[in-house]
């Protein structure tokens, strides 16, 4: 036996970073499956392709940084980032968009900041925002819920669409409900729904279904105590409350809370993106502020902003604010009367 000097504790909970990441990836599977079922192969191809690109980029960068890439690759963090990116991008996004997105997420947003744990911004969302700004049209076209409309792009045409024939994709895509709602022009909300006669029920159902699938995955993570309830609840709560108030005040001009909560990236954002621990606030109180902030921003941007969806921007903005929130939301420590506010010297 060797006499070794190790600091206590000597016991360790059998849960490691890579396992945490794996849990999160696993939890996205219901959502991914639903998306695939409803919208065809697009999302699955997205996820796989983005992951492949992401891992390759990660390995290259680590090699260039003269680090051993194996441990980092094994920790599943790059994989998770790319899975989330693939889920957030519209199905049948062209391969170069996926490549660009993975590059931005892994190389720029993560590794250039020092790798796992040091990136101030959620890498997947940085990539998403950049793509959204650079390719607004591609990014807001969402494949129509194929299964529901009997227009299934099969695997082959899906692949063709991804690798070089975007026009194939065009045949299947349409604006997302949120985007459509945004560009409804002068129409009143209910008129809009009525006009797009083929959209409502079924499309709506498809979005709601996938949202629910993501929510289930999120609940699984909550149960597994991978993250705490604070961010999702604060996010969904503030978004729901604001939209409810607005809808209650003026139902003809504002989308209903149901649209806000169960379409777009809300659920994916609330459970998988905003909860990214690296870039979120850290104390429980801070997480409440952080989540609520995202909810408010999402509502504001969706309602008055130029972009149809807002999760990416809201998360990024709150990432900005996270250090500040951390400073001002220190918990009250045991034996202290009051929490310390910010880094101030009380000399």
């Amino acid at each position, binding site marked *: 036996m*060797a*006499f*070794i*000097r190790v*600091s206590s504790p000597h016991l360790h909970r059998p849960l490691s970073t890579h396992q945490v990441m794996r849990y999160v990836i696993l939890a996205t599977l219901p959502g991914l499956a639903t998306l695939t079922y409803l919208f065809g192969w697009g999302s699955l191809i997205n996820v796989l392709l983005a992951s492949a690109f992401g891992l390759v980029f990660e390995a290259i960068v680590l090699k260039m940084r003269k680090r*051993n890439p194996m*441990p980092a690759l094994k920790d599943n963090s790059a994989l998770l980032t790319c899975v989330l990116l693939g889920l957030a991008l519209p199905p049948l996004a062209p391969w170069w968009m996926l490549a660009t997105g993975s590059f931005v997420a892994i190389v720029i947003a993560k590794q250039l900041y020092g790798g796992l744990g040091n990136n101030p911004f959620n890498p997947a969302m940085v990539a998403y925002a950049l793509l959204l700004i650079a390719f607004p049209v591609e990014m807001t076209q969402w494949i129509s819920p194929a299964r529901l409309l009997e227009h299934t792009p099969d695997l082959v045409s899906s692949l063709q669409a991804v690798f070089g024939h975007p026009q194939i994709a065009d045949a299947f895509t349409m604006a997302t409900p949120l985007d459509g709602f945004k560009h409804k022009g002068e129409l009143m909300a209910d008129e809009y729904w009525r006009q797009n006669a083929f959209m409502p029920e079924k499309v709506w159902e498809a979005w709601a279904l996938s949202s629910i699938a993501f929510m289930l995955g999120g609940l699984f993570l909550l149960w597994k105590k991978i993250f705490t309830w604070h961010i999702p609840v604060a996010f969904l709560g503030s978004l729901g409350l604001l939209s409810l108030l607005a809808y209650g005040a003026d139902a003809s001009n504002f989308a209903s809370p149901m649209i806000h909560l169960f379409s777009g990236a809300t659920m994916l954002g609330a459970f998988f993106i905003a909860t990214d621990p690296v870039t979120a606030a850290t104390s429980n109180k801070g997480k409440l502020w952080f989540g609520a902030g995202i909810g408010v921003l999402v509502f504001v941007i969706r309602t008055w902003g130029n972009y149809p969806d807002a999760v990416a921007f809201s998360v990024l903005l709150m990432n900005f604010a996270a250090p500040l929130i951390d400073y001002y939301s220190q918990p009250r420590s045991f034996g202290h009367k009051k929490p310390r506010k910010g880094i101030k010297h009380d000399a």
Partner: protein
Amino acid sequence: MTTFFSQHPVLAAVLGLLLLALVFGALLGYAAIRYKVEGNPIVEQIESLLPQTQCGQCSYPGCRPYAEAIANGEEINKCPPGGESTMIALADLMGRDPVPLDADPDTIGMKKVAFIREDECIGCTKCIIACPVDAIVGATKLMHTVIERDCTGCELCVAPCPVDCMDMLPIETTAKTWSWSIPQGPNARFQANVFATDGGQA
């Protein structure tokens, strides 16, 4: 007046700007007086960073004179007892670039304390005279001794001793002063801090 300005818009703009400048200047001036921060004079700040060893290795007779010299543009790398960290802190404070220390790298930052081999001491008082912090007690022809607590390890007492009974001993770690070192950090393979291997009893 109004017509004048409307006829000479450029002039009006310039005048307006001037007026604004005056107002803001006055405001700023007032603020500078009203909210003046009684800042530490720079020498004081520099001195507070120096280790107060008073060893004179910087070629100045004590830390304060060196602090004054730094304030007047002397190099910041002349304090071996302070080591790298002091130099960097000075660079920070003075807004200068860090420069490598001007000293034998082996001796930088080593904490030592003077020790008199008491049976060899002849009581010449030379070391007392040399000690910048009066950390040596003794009297003529009587044994001298170093107050360990006050010794800054400046070594100034070593050279004057005619019988070489002065040692600079590194301050040893004891079980009481021992402390945990900083962990190796991420991505470092765990290298067991192995102390002995033991076939052991069955």
